[in-house]
């Protein structure tokens, strides 16, 4: 078994782990902007819900960072 450069593994971990949350945050942002465009009077409520969802999706990327920085 050939030795793999740990930097490569770390880069792949952070890169592959960022794809899913990035798509998720993008979808949330797109939906929130679309919803504000349709009815701007409830902008505050929509943004509050969007931030909750961003927090939920962000946690996935936090797990990636957690694994990345704590593996030895």
């Amino acid at each position, binding site marked *: 078994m050939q*030795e*793999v450069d*740990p930097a490569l*593994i*770390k880069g792949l971990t952070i890169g592959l782990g960022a794809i899913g949350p990035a798509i998720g945050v993008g979808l949330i942002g797109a939906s929130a902007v679309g919803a504000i465009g349709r009815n701007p009077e409830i902008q505050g409520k929509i943004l*509050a819900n969007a*931030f*909750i969802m*961003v*927090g*939920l999706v*962000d*946690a996935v*990327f*936090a*797990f*990636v*960072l*957690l694994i990345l*920085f*704590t*593996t*030895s």
Partner: protein
Amino acid sequence: MLQTYFGEATAPLAPPTLFIFGPLPVTNSMVYGVLMAAIVLSIFVIAARASQLWPKSRLAFWLESFTDLVMSMIIDTFGGDRRRAVKHFPLLISLFVFILACNLSGLLPGVGSITYNGASLFRAWTTDLNSTLAMATLALLTVHIYALSEIGARGYFKHFFSGSLKSPLTIFIGINELIGEVLRLVTLSLRLFGVIYGGEALLVAIEILAGNFSWAAALPIMFLEIFVAFVQAYLFMMLTASYLVMAVSHGEPESSPEMQPAAARS
């Protein structure tokens, strides 16, 4: 073989024990958690003492406005039911304020650098999985005890196994729901821990990578961390509130006859 670059610099996952107090090993996160709890409690007690109908104290005014804001958010979550919102308000706002203070306390200078017996004396309370698990256990125990007291043991059982017990589908869905309850505990604790701990590890990593320019490179990450601290505290409170709402609202449509036609039509 995976070697870490920052393993030496970041705090270890398990908090080191500082000293033994009776039968209890006291870790650095416990010390800082108790300290933050005392600070938050004393600020609120001072504000409550100074509170009056025409507030002259600026601190009391700001904290009253803040409490009112959180109150309106919780009433919205409970669907305008003010009585139930007021009943659960103390737990929810304590969770929010305490988690927010602990998240932000990890960013203060001197938190990782002041050492005692070779270990850092302070460590943010929420960067320790034990403490977030304890808070999630507290929140979910409250949810279940409240559900038991509100809808009774039978309604609580019906909440998981709704439908006839002879059908295997009911059993399957019920077991899935039970697993979901355990997963709630895991996600609620791991989310808070992972985000805050990962954020602090990211801060250390960025500072090491930037070298001499760490003061500039760490600044945007610091703002991200402040934002994340608010979002996570808000999320913990809101998830607890929505679990409280969900725990008792599930059994209601079957019992109330006026809801039946609307459900059948849709």
